[in-house]
């Protein structure tokens, strides 16, 4: 059996406020999302909001390491979404340039444990000006033992839209 399986791939034909992966089978060990995304937020950068199983309550937390200057910084938050994975370019960024992100959700269907997320993202630009580019890594927690069956991704900076040509690929990864 192949170790990686494409569960779903979405390329947006028009702007959309969010992307949802629904009815995810519990037959894998891990999930991996690779995204190439841009939003219509007026700024240079945007960040992913991530929610599971339509849970919009304050059951999420995250810690991130990031920078858009010469000085990296770290923050933590407990809120209604995993956030601050900076991997979505904003509308002020260089045209045709999309952010990059890789998001891992290990053991997403293990009902004994809360769910963790490890992610890395970048907002690339042809600029050296502070905050016209961002690189970031995050760790996130969903304080729920339910198997993840639905994932919502959305631009969290200003709750704007993903723009056309943004792509999102969800892989299922099996163990031995």
């Amino acid at each position: 059996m192949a170790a990686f399986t494409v569960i779903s791939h979405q390329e947006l034909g028009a702007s959309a406020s969010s992307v949802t992966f629904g009815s995810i089978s519990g037959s894998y060990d891990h999930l991996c999302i690779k995204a190439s995304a841009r939003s219509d937020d007026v700024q240079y950068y945007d960040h992913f909001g991530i929610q599971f199983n339509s849970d919009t309550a304050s059951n999420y937390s995250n810690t991130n390491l990031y920078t858009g200057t010469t000085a990296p910084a770290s923050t933590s938050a407990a809120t209604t979404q995993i956030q601050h994975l900076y991997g979505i370019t904003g509308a002020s960024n260089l045209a045709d340039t999309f952010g990059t992100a890789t998001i891992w959700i290990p053991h997403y269907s293990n009902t004994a444990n809360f769910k963790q997320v490890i992610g890395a993202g970048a907002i690339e630009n042809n600029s050296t000006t502070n905050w016209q580019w961002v690189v970031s890594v995050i760790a996130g927690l969903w304080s729920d033992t339910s198997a993840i069956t639905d994932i919502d991704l959305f631009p969290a900076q200003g709750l704007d839209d993903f723009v056309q040509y943004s792509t999102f690929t969800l892989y299922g990864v099996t163990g031995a």
Partner: protein
Amino acid sequence: MAVIEAIETVYLEADAASVEFSSIPATYEHLQFRLTARSSYAATGQATLDVQLGTGGGAVDTGTNYSRHYMRGSGTVDDASAATGSTAIDCMRAVNANETSTKYSPSIMDILDYANANKNTTVQATTWADKAGSYPELGFASGLWDATGAVDRVKFTLTGGSYNFVRGSEFTLYGLKSS
């Protein structure tokens, strides 16, 4: 059919100034390089591992069309840097020649949606390298090639071609499908 396919592996049997992958098919959604590299650079610090890209069957672009942003930690130091108008994306590192001869630097670099003609090419990399006279360096970086053509050629050099990749350096290119 496998979702991740190994397109090509290059293992250096002798020192080389560059490693180049050509005729990369456009049939995947994403590309990923996994590599372990060692450099002939023997002064303080370590060599940068640079990336140039090409499209349309031609040579890699050597113009000033690249940008790079790099965040790193080394000992108790953490900082970041930015560059634009560059002739390559210097987003990774290769271990210094003065380090133990069996040390090679691991790096992973993704090129997402590399064949989408509606997008400039962006890369994302994680890298680690020992460097003589200082702490090892862990880096996370992104890069931009200001061109929308499908990437079909990737060239790696060290600090603009100033140094060699040492024998035993190894590069593998994977293609990730989306269906």
